[in-house]
Structures are given as structure tokens and as C-alpha cells.
């Protein structure tokens, strides 16, 4: 069991308000990702849940029980830190066993739990090594191992993959998702990378400047962004925004079209422009097109479409895939 409820949580450091007012319900067993630009307060929010920071105001409940003033250790949550925070002088076994040792668990139980965690995480051959003798991915797994042996109510991850190279990041992303499927424990995962958020989450919390912009499933966020910020943040490449006369035609202050919802033609389209750069990824080709009166627009076409720098092309949005926003940036 591990549902987490935040009610009107506020946090300021000295005079600086980092989190003005957040209320949030995280259901038991869900994989929830906090995503947002750097400095928007994701880590702070996670640390508030963990109990590493005190709330300035508001209430945090875990399983319906008020934990606002409870010490971190008593909240029964496990955290995986961005720097891994492994204990350098202890072996991998010592690191993973540490939380149980602190609980004064019997030796057989500790050994069983450590061996179990090690086999889940493919660490069995490394149990007697020190952290500094491990690669980044292995250290990451040790940190996760240390988190799972306690059988916590929920796992908290703070950008756990940001120190890994791209290939390893994709692999660990899968491993963490598999781990979630296996353990079915609540996970709260912080990242600034919307791809991680989209691929891993049951539900995504999009944060901006300490406020929740939208809370929903990845597809909800993709298909029905609540505002311009979410529309621009979710999806890659970014959504194209057009303001002014073109938007007026759709009866909105500004409109947005995702790159994958723009069809490219050699003849004239709704808009026409000159290809500035074309990026060939093999499977896809991204075209950056300079459109008169609308700025640069990005399109995503299939990999075999060959447009060259300097060619004039027509762009037409797919019917019903134009997002409209009012002057405040809210979706209409």
C-alpha cells in the first residue's frame, strides 16, 4: 500500500517561494512522473514527500495517515538519489543491507533480501565490490537495490538516469519499468526529460515554476494539453505555435500544430515556406521550414521523403489536429 496525498503544500526558502500551492493525489501502485524544466521545483517537491525538507504550510499524507511532521525514516519511503549516494566504504552487499541492518533485522532475513535484490538487479557477481569499482549503470542498480530491500510503501527517484550515457539510459528506463511491473509499488519519479516521462509514466505531473500545469496520463497530455506550456513541453520535436492572423482564422489567440500533424507537399499547402534544414534520422526526417509570417515550423515526415535545403514546400495541418489557445495560453 502506498497512496500519497498532498494538500495545499507550500514551500519557501527564506523569502523565496518555490512551491506556491500544490495539491495532488497519487494512487497506490501508480508510476507517477514529475516533469518540468530545470529549477521548477521537482526535486523540492520530492524532498518534501520524502521528509528531507519541512513544508512551509499544508499537509502530506501517506496511506491516509498524516506524515507532515514525521521523520524521513518513519515514512517508509525509499529514495534513489541523482548522485546515487552510495556509501563508498561499504561493499555492494553492505550498501544494500544497510537499511535492514538499521532495522536490526535478523541476519538470515538480511542475507535473503540482499540476495533476492541482487538477483533481480543482476548484481550477484558484484556483491563484494566497492561502489568505486562499478560502472555508472551498476551503481545505479545498487542504489535501487538499497531502495527495494526495505519493501517501502513507495519509491522516490530524483533524476536517477541523468548521469548515464544515452544507450544505458534507455536500458535502465526499461529495467525500472519492469521493476515497477514486478513489484507494483508506487513510484514517484522526477525527470526533466519528457521522453522519460512519456515512456515510463502511468500519470504525469507537469510542473512549471512550482505549479502543476496538468496532471494526467501520457496520452491525455499529448492529445489534450491543458495549456500552451504543456503543449510545448510534451512531444518531440516541439509543437509549432502560430500567432496573429493565421490564428485568428481558427478563432484563437494562437494555434499549435505538432510536427507529426503537418503534411508536406511539393505544391502549395495551407502555408508554404523554404526548407532550411532537413535532419535525416533514418526512420523519420525532420524538416525545418521557414514560413512567411509564421516563423520556422518543424515537420516530421517518414524517412524516405527527400526534400533538400532551399526547396519550396507546402505545409498543411491534419484535419482536427490544430490546438487552439486563448490570450492566457489556455486551451480552448
Amino acid at each position, binding site marked *: 500500500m502506498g497512496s500519497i496525498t498532498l494538500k495545499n503544500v507550500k514551500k519557501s526558502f527564506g523569502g523565496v517561494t518555490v512551491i506556491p500551492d500544490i495539491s495532488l493525489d497519487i494512487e497506490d501502485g501508480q508510476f507517477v512522473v514529475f516533469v518540468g524544466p530545470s529549477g521548477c521545483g521537482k526535486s523540492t517537491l520530492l524532498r518534501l514527500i520524502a521528509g528531507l525538507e519541512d513544508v512551509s504550510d499544508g499537509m502530506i499524507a501517506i496511506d491516509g495517515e498524516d506524515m507532515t511532521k514525521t521523520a*524521513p525514516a518513519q515514512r517508509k519511503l525509499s*529514495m534513489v*538519489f541523482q548522485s546515487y549516494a552510495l*556509501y563508498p566504504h561499504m561493499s555492494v552487499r553492505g550498501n544494500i543491507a544497510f*537499511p535492514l541492518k*538499521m532495522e536490526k533485522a535478523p541476519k538470515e532475513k538480511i542475507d535473503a533480501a540482499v540476495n533476492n535484490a541482487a538477483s533481480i538487479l543482476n548484481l550477484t557477481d558484484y556483491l563484494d565490490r566497492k561502489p568505486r569499482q562499478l560502472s555508472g549503470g551498476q551503481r545505479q542498480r545498487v542504489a535501487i537495490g*538499497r531502495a527495494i530491500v526495505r519493501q517501502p510503501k513507495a519509491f522516490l527517484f530524483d533524476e536517477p538516469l541523468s548521469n548515464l550515457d544515452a544507450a544505458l539510459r534507455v536500458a535502465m528506463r526499461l529495467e525500472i519499468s519492469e521493476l515497477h511491473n514486478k513489484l507494483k509499488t508506487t513510484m514517484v519519479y522526477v525527470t526533466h526529460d519528457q521522453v522519460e516521462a512519456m515512456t515510463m509514466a502511468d500519470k504525469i505531473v507537469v510542473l512549471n515554476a512550482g505549479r502543476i500545469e496538468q496532471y494526467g496520463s501520457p496520452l491525455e497530455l499529448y492529445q489534450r494539453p491543458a495549456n500552451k506550456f504543456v503543449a510545448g513541453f510534451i512531444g518531440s520535436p516541439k509543437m509549432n505555435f502560430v500567432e496573429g492572423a493565421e490564428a485568428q482564422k481558427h478563432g484563437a489567440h494562437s494555434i499549435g500544430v505538432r510536427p507529426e500533424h503537418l503534411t508536406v507537399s511539393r505544391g502549395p499547402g495551407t502555408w508554404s515556406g523554404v526548407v532550411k534544414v532537413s535532419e535525416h534520422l533514418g526512420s523519420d526526417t525532420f524538416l525545418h521550414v521557414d514560413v512567411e509570417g509564421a516563423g520556422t515550423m518543424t515537420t516530421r515526415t517518414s524517412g524516405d521523403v527527400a526534400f533538400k535545403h532551399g526547396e519550396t514546400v507546402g505545409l498543411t495541418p491534419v484535419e482536427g489536429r490544430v490546438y487552439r489557445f486563448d490570450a492566457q495560453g489556455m486551451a480552448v
Partner: protein
Amino acid sequence: MATAQTQTAARFMMAPAVLLLLAWMIIPLSMTLYFSFQRYNLLMPGMEYFTGFDNYRYFFANPNFWAALTNTLVLVGGVLAITLIGGTLLALLLDQPMFGQGIVRLLVIAPFFVMPTVSALVWKNMLMHPVNGFFAWLARVFGFQPIDWFAQFPMFSIIMIVAWQWLPFATLILLTALQSLDEEQREAAGMDGAGPLSLFFYIILPHIARALTVVMLIQTIFLLSIFAEILVTTNGGPGVATTNLTFLIYMQSLLQFDVGLASAGGIVAVILANIVAIFLLRIVGKNLEA
């Protein structure tokens, strides 16, 4: 910097310094070694002659030698124990955020800047004096008989004075070690359920172990040759209760004008220091490996 070429270059560039250092050490050491085999008393100038190991025999035969050896070890051990434990505790205290942190730190470091003779005199005359001392006054306030520290607990008194001088050094080094502990490690340990004691023994102590080793080695080197504090307070007494090897050598050379005997004592002290150093490096040396 591990290619053969850089290593050769490094050796060449270091050579002058190494040679200078070698001459610096070798010349006094060999002179001492030479004198230690000579019958050489300043009261009988011009009558030096080779005596073999006689000086060493006399030095070891001195009934005070074993007492001095024990005193040396007790002094070093006592001061080390106080400064390492006290230094760790003080460093933990100073690492807490508090009002006036900078000034408190400066005050704690201050004793290190006081000359040994001066601090020993201050302790002797202002703190431990049986009539005028602060401790005597304190004892009288509470209705106790004042203690004559240097007569009743001479070695303890010397240890206190020397420990007071070296505590800041230990504190300072250990404080920097403490401050280099990763904050996330503390937080991780906290979330893993470690209380203050577990945090100290499982996380903090291993982290500062290397600094403790360094403090211990450096202090040992200096503490083996404590002299000024003894000279201005107890003069090695009562009896030989506070005579360490350095003081014994001083008494023999300067009070008896026997340069040969004193040189033999000096060589013995050098050998002893090396034994202690090797011994210490053996026990704690593994902490120094990367």
C-alpha cells in the same frame, strides 16, 4: 603522468631537491652517529677517542632509561587519545550551523598559535598553581582541598597541557574532513533509518578515518620530541616522573656535558621513532591507500 618519458623528466627535476634534503638529513645524522661512538665530554676537550658501543651501554644501563621510554609512550598515547576523540567531538559540534560560527572557530583554533613555552607557563602559573591557580580557586569555592597538579599528577598535567595545544590542529583537520561528506549520503542514511549514533559510526567515522590517520601520524612525530612543556613546568620531575627520552638526552648532554652519551641517546630516539612510525603505519596504513 605515467609514461616512461614523464617519469624520467620528473626524476631529473626532483633530483636537486632530493639531494639537498638528503644532505640536510644525512650530515647531522652521520655526525650524531659518529659522536655516539666517541668518548667526548665537553669538560675534557681534546681528549676524544673511539669507545665502540660504550656510550650505548651506558645509556641503556641508565636506570632512568626505561622510565623515560615508558613516559614517552604514555605521553604520546595520552595526548593522541584526547586530541583524536576530543577533536572529533569538537569538529562535530563546529560542523553544526550556529550563531557566530566564524568567531567560535577562530577561538577554537587559537591555542595552536600560542608558543609551547608560553602556554605551559600559563597553565603552570594561572591554571594549575596550587595557590594562585584557577583550578585551586575553583576547588576552594566548592570547599575542596586544592590539588598540587605538578606534584600529585605530573604526567597527567603535562598531557593536559600538550593536548590543549594540539586539540585545535586535530579539530581543524577533522572539521574539513567532515565538511567534505556528501550531504546526500547523510540524507540517504537518514532515510535508511540510521539514527545519530548509527550515522556517526557507519557513515561519518569511516569517512573521516583517513583524516584521523593523518592527524595521528603527524602528531606522533611531534609528540615524540616534546620538550619545552616539560622544561618550564616539571623539569622532568618529580624524580623522573615526567622525563621523556628527549628530556633524558638533554639532561645527559647539557647537564653532564657528555656529547658522546647524548648522541647515543639521540640515535636510540631516532630508532624508537622509526619503530613507532612503522608500527603506526602498519595498523592504520591501509586507511591511506586510495
